[in-house]
């Protein structure tokens, strides 16, 4: 079976995330950089929407992005 580089990186990434999830992270007061607007998962929604629309119309794949997590963790 021929494994592509991106697939390998995805598997590695997934393994890294799952393995580290229990112990990784920062204290609630250490989220200054994560609170930055350009670090939000939802930053630039219209730009992503316009891009996704273009790629959806011209390619056979679409989507991928999720919707929750990260940020300042406030409240």
């Amino acid at each position: 079976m021929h494994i592509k580089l991106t697939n390998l990186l995805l598997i590695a990434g997934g393994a890294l995330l799952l393995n580290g999830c229990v112990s990784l992270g920062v204290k609630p007061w250490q989220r200054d950089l994560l609170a930055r607007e350009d670090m939000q998962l939802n930053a630039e929604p219209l730009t992503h929407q316009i891009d996704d629309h273009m790629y959806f119309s011209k390619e056979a794949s679409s989507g991928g992005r999720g919707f929750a997590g990260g940020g300042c963790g406030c409240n």
Partner: protein
Amino acid sequence: MQLKARGAGASRATPADMRIVRRRLIAASCALLGATAARSQDATGAASDAISGDWSVDSALAYYHESGGRVSAVEPIVNFSKTFDDGRTFSGELVFDSLSGSTPNGALPSTKPQTFASPSGSSLSSAPITYTTSSGQLSVEGARIYTINPGQQPMDPHYHDQRLAISGNWGMPLGRLTTATYGGKLSYEHDFLSASVSAGIARAFNEKNTTLSFQLNNEFDKLNPIGGAPLAASDYALFKKTGGKTKDGVGMMLGLTQVMNRRWLSELNVSVDRFHGYLNDPYKIISIIDPAGDTTGYLYEKRPSSRTRKSVYWDNRAAWGRLSTDLSMRYMFDTWRVHSDTATLSVRWWNPDRDRFLEPYVRWYRQSAADFYTPWLDSTGSRSIGYASSDARLGAFHAFTYGLKYGAKIRDSTDHMSSEFSIRVLYYRQTPDHRLAGPGALQGLDLYPGLEALLLQVGYKF
């Protein structure tokens, strides 16, 4: 009494004139659905750290232009969002897009001139015709005939379409650690109607360093192709068409977001979606080529009536002082045997005052062809085909995107950065792979033109 307004002359800021930095709601688009000419997209809003305040408005205007007189589109979008005092969120959006220009009809160039009728046509004669189909009578205006010169890519020059979409998304906190979201979208074009709903739930763990989310989407589309939906794999010249078609889809996404360290956030999403129903492009045909390279006829395309796609998406954001980066990768494969790899990188570079930024962007994409993709059909082959499509979007190609965005925050009278203006330019180029040389006379012709497009976008949010 909670947020009492102070008297005039007080030196302290009052709640009334306090400008709360507004966060806009998420309007993240999630994996989805449909790969035919019909456009269908789903967007779901969710509340994260947005704080309550007035309505926020995010707007954009995009102009898209393909080279070679192909499709041009204008797309204005406006999004209104608000976070309420109890943490609930709402986001409503209106999208309009207008497309025009010429679009490939799926046939191959030839060494001889070719004549086609626009989808509204029912014959290659320009006289109006009324014909009866299984669902009743279809009366057709005079066909718009177009002739393609030898060596030219067959393009329908009369392509135009307008779409209006409206969507609403709600977010509701369920305690400190959980958020529920739900939304709906309606999209209307004169030959296509799409309705979709979505619902999701997200739960934070580990002092909010880890977030697990799950989202479900359902979509129903109704197609009313201009001139009727052609009988799949039938002879183009017979113009055998029927009435409206439908398709529906279900999708789900499982997401994991993890704070890796103070500077690095990682997100992994796994999604599956399945569409069932009429998945053909009603406007596409396939050329039948003989060994000498001459076109002997055309057939309407035929695709399977179901398609299941699976994808894994991994995104990493990091921040260092005035820079922030976003690196993502996605792998997708489906039951049509298309598989694709995508990688994107954007770097945002702020000025020292953090009120201007420049953001270059690059994307690499590669996909393999669907197993029923074929640039043409051999005349010597069987006349009854299984699935076949010559739609370039199902072929093997790789694509590069290069983009640059500039943003500037505008300060209001109290020196708060209350609005932002942005301008973005993007270049997209698609290059076909595995280009099979045509037989006979077709050897000298360019059968795989690829695609080049420019996108210009301006945005304003306040």
